[in-house]
């Protein structure tokens, strides 16, 4: 069934191009964001240990709270991605429909 798909023609459709654009609009900034957010933890821990060792309440310090926030960050980014991906799925179905016509 897929042997007779004209990939070049499909790739040239407006539907496919807008799918790629939509994906890039989410994935590129999201990836940059999570990488920057993640690496600021070892960077700050490594090069600003006084700041990170500052106590917030009791012995709980900035370093630990920042580490905990990474878990929340990962879950939130994943949740946002799943929401956005539902839109990508719809757009992909349009492309496929065009290919089988």
């Amino acid at each position, binding site marked *: 069934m897929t042997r007779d798909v004209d*990939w070049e023609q499909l790739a040239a459709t407006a539907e496919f191009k807008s799918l790629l654009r939509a994906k890039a609009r989410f994935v590129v900034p999201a990836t940059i964001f999570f990488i920057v957010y993640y*690496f600021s933890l070892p960077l700050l821990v490594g090069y600003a240990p006084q700041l990170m060792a500052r106590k917030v309440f*009791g*012995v709980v310090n900035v370093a630990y709270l920042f580490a905990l926030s990474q878990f929340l960050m990962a879950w939130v980014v994943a949740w946002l991605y799943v929401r956005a991906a539902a839109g990508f799925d719809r757009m992909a179905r349009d*492309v496929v429909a065009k290919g089988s016509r």
Partner: protein
Amino acid sequence: MSHALVMFLGFIAVTLWITWWAARKSAGASAFFAAGRSLKAWQNGIAVAGDYMSAASFLGIAGIIAFQGYDGFMYSVGWLVAYLTVLLIVAEPLRNAGKYTMADVLAYRLSPRPVRAMGAVSTLTVGTFYMIAQMVGAGALVSLLLKDTGITYQTAVVGIGVLMIVYVVFGGMLATTWVQIVKAVLLMAGTILLSILVLGHYGFSFGAFFEAIGHVTYTNAQGATVTQDFMTPLLRYTPPYGALDLISLGMALILGTAGLPHILVRFYTVSDAQTARKSVVWAMFIIGSFYILTTFLGFGAATIVGRDFIAANGGNNMSAPLLAQALGGDLFFAFISAIAFATILAVVAGLTISASTSFAHDFWTNVLHGGRERREGEEVRVARITAFFVGGISILIAIVLGPTANVAFLVALAFAVAASANLPVIVLSLFWRRFNTAGAVCGLATGLVSSLVLIAMSPSILGRDGAIFPLENPGIVSIPLGFLGAVVGTLLTREPQAEQKFTELSVRANTGLGAERASSH
């Protein structure tokens, strides 16, 4: 002590029943290699989590936090955030464009023989290091736990090896997956229970718990008694190179996970990319919850059991089981130990099937025999035979290395190779039109060799003073080198066919058109 043996025998009985059930149920290559691509998102998600939460996670992180405090928690963070790379970049295109292995995606538009051969080498390297680490850990654990029952390190290693061969050879991916699911559920249950007991010890007061973390007393290397705030960063990663090492570790964790063959093959076990996506989300929920709880396991062991006691009773890998003993007595100790053992067993089975799949599918069928099975069922038969060899070789190496081998560097090496060799070529092959065969082979080779060489020159092998390369984690150098190798190799050659086929790969990867379908619906 025999409680642990009884519980572990119970786990073995359940897993052998699963294997028998899976063996009756499945036939054919897609069933053996990919569980018929018919797993549900939650099933695969739990199995991904199970594959991931190895001995290094459960015993290792608890041990590092118990001994060096906060720095151990950095592993927990990296191991979860790594799944964003899997979710956002790798999982869906891989499911859409591949069949059984990581190299499928590379072979799609590149010259299949060289990239599959290199892909198989890299997969087997990562798998072997990871596996030996698990087996040495398991052997050491068992010979400590069951020392009264006469089970030695050698017996334990052979036993684990034989069981993982049985799961894989007879039950294939379906059995391996369900063993993984059972183990993941047990591991989560054990971890939650242990965390509740830790909090209970402090009268369910977070304030009291964290207060105790602020004043951990132990005997230092000079024999003096010191009191340390274990929330303080950089107790493990000390100057002058600690900060760089921490960043290097982070790079290997974040980029290595998306290049681990035994994780990647899991995305072929579901019906489509949407299900693959959902299974990553399931995995992230379970893995994240688990790693947050390492706070209680690690700091609990540091404050309740104490570093000195753990050091005198089996070393830092025994932190979690000893914590269980202190809080719940011998029965709970046995339960947690059996879980640790089950964890290792399930992970080595997952590693064995991904290594066998890569050898049979990439190397045997595609490199040696031009992509065709000479006889029906040959690929599965070769994979089964490979599983015997993989198991046998791992047993031998684990016995030769012995129970005192430094296993931490083996796991670091696995992640470093995955991040430096596998990830660059996967990403470039999916997103860079100009990328070609020379680039892939060059990238895989540079990443593999540079991480191996840097580890060989690191403090893990040569000791703190003799090290030529000052970091334990080579990622900060080897990952850029892997990317560089791939880019340079590409730019030195031109391969019009690979560039042409990029269009097809891109449409397939992004839409799922023409993707491998589930077989048993």
